[in-house]
Structures are given as structure tokens and as C-alpha cells.
């Protein structure tokens, strides 16, 4: 595993709420990861940026209800680019536990519901990264 874990963070689509993603960005940086935050982006933009930045992890935030629609597009785009097995995908935001499970089935490695702590997120990402090697 090369150097620092590099995480690309994005708001999914047009979602206006960025308090959570900024809190997570700071938390990941404080935990020693390299963080790039690209603001509001669509799935293809996120994948393009991840390729450009050679990211290890893609983290997206969705509080606006589009987690399944745009979330599944993101995974599909990753598969199209042959990245699904090389990058860790995590999502946080507001959605039901049932939808969180759907997101895992779609292909998200980690899904964080409201109330997740920074420590939980950091540990989970470290765990995923070490497993993926």
C-alpha cells in the first residue's frame, strides 16, 4: 500500500447540505489521509476526477434523496471504467437503513447513516483499504 490513503470526496448531484462532508473531510485529514473535495458533482465527473487524482477511496454525500439513483450510476460508471475493484466506495447522508442495505448490494463498500462518528468512518476506510491491498 503506497503512502497516504487518498480520498476523493464529493457531494452527490445538486445536494445543498455540506456540513457533514466538510466535517468528514477534516476528520480524514486529521487522521493522516490525503483528501480532495470536489464539491457538487455528477457520477461521471466523480469517476473522472478519481482517475486523475489516482484516488484510493471515493466518498460521496447525499442528503437529498438521490442516493439510489445517482449512487447506482456512480457504481455503474466505475465498472464501465474498470475501477470498481480498485477503488473503495463509501457513502454517507440521510436515507433509511433499508436503503443503506440496498446501497451495499449495489456495490458500496461502506455506508454511513446519520450519527456515524468520524472515528467509525476513519476505521472503516482503513479497514477497507487494508483488505483491498
Amino acid at each position: 500500500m503506497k503512502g497516504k490513503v487518498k480520498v476523493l470526496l464529493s457531494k452527490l448531484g445538486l445536494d445543498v447540505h455540506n456540513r457533514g462532508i466538510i466535517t468528514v473531510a477534516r476528520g480524514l485529514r486529521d487522521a493522516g489521509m490525503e483528501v480532495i473535495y470536489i464539491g457538487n458533482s455528477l457520477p461521471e465527473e466523480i469517476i473522472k476526477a478519481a482517475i486523475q487524482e489516482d484516488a484510493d477511496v471515493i466518498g460521496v454525500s447525499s442528503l437529498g434523496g438521490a442516493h439510489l439513483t445517482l449512487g447506482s450510476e456512480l457504481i455503474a460508471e466505475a465498472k464501465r471504467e474498470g475501477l470498481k475493484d480498485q477503488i473503495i466506495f463509501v457513502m454517507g447522508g440521510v436515507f433509511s437503513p433499508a436503503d443503506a442495505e440496498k446501497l451495499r448490494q449495489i456495490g458500496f463498500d461502506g455506508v454511513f447513516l446519520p450519527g456515524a462518528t468520524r472515528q467509525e468512518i476513519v476505521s472503516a476506510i482503513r479497514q477497507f483499504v487494508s483488505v483491498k491491498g
Partner: protein
Amino acid sequence: MAGGKSTTKEILQAKLAGRERVPLYNPEALARLRREFDHWRDTAVREQDRENWYATPHTILGSDIPREMLYTPLNNSDLDYTQDLGNSGQEPFTRGIHANMYRGREFTMRQLTGFGGPEDTNKRMKFMLEHGATGLNPLFDLPTIQMYDSDDPISRGQVGMSGVAIDSVEDMDLLFKDIPLDEVTVSLVTHYPSNTAILFPMYLAMAERRGISWDKLRGSVQNDITLEEVVRSGPEYIPPEDCFRIQCDNIEFIRGNVPQWNFITLNGYNLREFGTSGITEMAVAVANGIESVEEMLRRGHNVDWIAERLAFFWSPASDFFEEVARIRAVRRLWYKIMKYRFDARSARSLWMRCHVQTSGVSLMRQEPLNNIIRAAYHALSAVFGGAQSLHVDSYDEAYSVPTEEAALLSLRTQQIIQAETGVTEVVDPLGGSFYVEALTNDIEARILDEVDEIERLGGYVAAIGKGWVHRKIADYFSREQSMIERGDIKLVGYNVYKAHGELPPIEVFQYPQGVEERQKARLAKLRERRDNEKVNSALAALGEACNRKKNVVPYTVDCARAGCSEGEIFKVFKQAYGLWRPPVLW
């Protein structure tokens, strides 16, 4: 103060100094009380309590103001009832803007509604009205809020989620189908100045089509730069100076043409939810209000002309007495500012009228039914504070937009307060409490200090541009997260009193299917049917007005009449003003 201009705090200090005070409390009684209190404290109070006399409640969105164990008249020893409190409906309005408050007019029960296409939200709005809601509060989906059409590639997968999709005057018409615009009060959650200048004209054009004159329309829009430039994350922003100008254009146009409409609800709520204390929330809204009034004076208008209709929008959260005290504090402070800084003459100009929405961020995902209790306390504190209009957040806040059942429960929360508790029979029932009055005084001073800080930065718009507001918020919410994770902020069912094992899942709202397709189809038909020459000339005229810095709203009204879509109008703004990059938050 740099530039020779006095700050509001300096002006108030100068104008209010030397006023003769008539203390309510007898000095002899106070002296005796002082002796007795000290004796009591030394003998009847445990040493542990003496040493920890001040305790600081830690809550989500709290201000960390320390509280004494017991409050007495000594905490407000020079209270002058007439100067500091007055009766309700009397200067300085600490006790309420009307003499009879809720006896004369119940707080408006105005629950947010919004999801799917206009026909879906129309149904839910009717449901709420049928069940006793007294105001409408439609909320728009993310594409509409961010000012993109439903068929814009950037909107895909998001149409009709977390709000209703509105692209044109025709959608607005469907949204309000069979709803009598001249009989209801409608708070259109337009959020931004730009969006207000785009969506409200569609509402006005719809009224015209129905033959309803604009002077019959009652309601409000947010129209707040705070929402467009500070609180939201979005792909494109216009510069703060242009955004503020549009805010004032909206105020000017609406005041002049839609006389019963509240043209701004100073924020407030969204800023605080983003992550600040209740003090900063109010300081920002007050600073924004001051700057808006100043701009309207510069445009040649009379202060009462604008001030009579200014309104505010707050976020009652969990520190119960702080919430009560701060609404009273800002009501008194706003009175002082309007009277002594701006020489407002009309009584209405002196009133801090407000809508409140109970804090969403204070609600938890774990054991969601607990949120019903939390929101009930938030709502009650706002009623004790004297708010004019309420929205109570629903218990499934951390899951999705509310189910019908959850939305109804929120409405019932308000109705139970109104009909069963008896608290609305007495005006300002907590007035005179040694604690509440001391806290009101403390908070008023703190709010004014932060207003002063903003003014010394060059004013609110300058503070936005400099990143001061953004940084303050980011620091606040990071610190708050640490306090939650450390357990300094206790949250039942989350980090204290945690349940063992899983509770049964709650029913979660499901969005209607096919909304995006329906919206796209409507838009396609509209673009075909409308007079596209009129559309293009309306958009061109708007662009011209933007470049000449004329009031843009008459032009956006023409655009709405011609059937322009939201995205088409926003594009004109972007082209005219260019894009702005907001300060980075981390």
C-alpha cells in the same frame, strides 16, 4: 470605527445613554436580599454546588452560556419594567408584538410540504389544510432550488426528491390547483434572492392568469443572501454583491406591487442548522436586516416603507430557556435598532415578526420516535418566546421527507399546544422570571456584540466575501461534532440511555414514481407550445436589465408570463454577473 461611520452598537449606546431609569425593586429590599442570599449561599448550599455555581448546558447548536444555580432579583437589580420590558404590544416589545398575542391571533401552523411533481405536493397541501394547517409552506426539490430545469443533465436522478419540482408558471399552477390564492397564506420556500426573483414571478403570473389581483395575495418568500452564498453547496454561484442587489430588488418590487407579502424572512434557521449558535444566527440576520434597510434608504425609500414588512426566521433547538430568552432578546434589540438607529415612525416597523422551524439537526436517527418529544419542546419554547408562525420538524427527519403520518403528528404537536395546554391564554407567561429576564439581557448583549463584529468587518456582504461567516460556521460544527463524539453533548438513545438490540424499523416515505419523466414531458410540451419569440425577447430584456443594474424583477415577471423556465432565467443571471467561488471551508 474605521471610515468615521458609527456601528449600530455605538449608535444605540449614544442614544440610550442617560435615559432616566426607575428601578422596580426597592433598594432596601435588594440590600436585605443581598445579605440573605449570601448567607443562604454560605450555609444552606453545599460546598460542591457553591464551587460549581455556574453550569453550562451543552446541546446541539447551543451557545455554551453558563447558568447560575438559582436566579433572584439580584440578577436584574436595576430592572425598570417600563424601559426593559413594557407590556405586550408596547415598546420595547420584549413581551410580545401584540397586546393580546395568541388570544387575538393563533400562531400560524405552517408545515413544510414538498415532494414529487406539482400534482403530488398539491395533494399533500390539501391534506394538511383539511387537517387544520393554517398556512402553506411548499418546499422545492434540489434542481429547482439550485435553479436548473428538470430536463437539465445536472438534474437527473434528483427530480422531485426532498421537495417539489417546479420548472415554470404552468407547474406553479398545477401546484396550487383548486387552492384559493386569495384565501390562503403561502410561504414559498424560494430560499435565495436569485430564486425568489425567478419563482415568485411565476406565482404572480399564475395569480394573473386566475384573475386574482396581487394585492390580495398573502404570504412570504425567504429571499436571503445567506442561503444563496453561505449556507448552500452548489455548482454555480453569482457574486455576493449581485446577489445582495437582487435581494433588494425583490424587496423593492414586492413591497411596491404585492402589499401583503413578506418580501424577506431574514435567516436565521438555515444558517444555524449549518452550524452556529443561536447568538450568531441572530447577529447575522440582524446585520443582514440592517444592511438591507440601509440599501433601501439609499434607493430613496422611507424606512417604514420597508421595515413594516421585514420578518425573521429562527431555529428553536434544545436549550429550552435559551430559546425562549433569545426570541425575546432579539425582539427588544430589533425594536431599539429600528427606533434609535433608523428613526422608524410606524409601530409595525418596530416589530420583530418571526416564523420558526424546530431544529432538524437536533433530531436523531436512533429511536426516531424520541424526536416527537424533542420537537414538541422546541415548539413550546418558540411559543413561550412569542413566535408568529411555526413549522415542527417530523420524527423521521433523519430518514427522508416526512410520511403523511409523521407530517400530521407535527401538525398535532402545534394543535395540542394551542388547544390543550392553556399556555396561549396568557401573554408572555415566563416574563418576570428572574432567570428568563437575566438570560434575555445577557443574550441581547451578546447578539449586539456579534453584530458589531460584523459591521467592523465592513458589513454583512463584506463578511461573506471575506469568508468570515464560512469559517465561523466550519469551526463551530467541527467543534460540535467533537463534543458529540466525546459525550459532552448528551443525546438520548444515541450516546446515553442506549437501547440494547434493534428497535422495529419505522415506515419511511417513498417517492412517487415517474416524476422526472413527467416533468421532462411537461417541459418539452411547454417549450413547443409557448411563443418562443416572446420568451427570447423577455430573456434578452432581462439580460439588458442585469447589465444596467436595473431592478430585475419586472423583467423576470415578464419572463414568467412568457413561460420561461427556471434554468433559462438563471442562465441570464450567470451570464450577466459571472460566477463566484465561495470560500473553501476546510
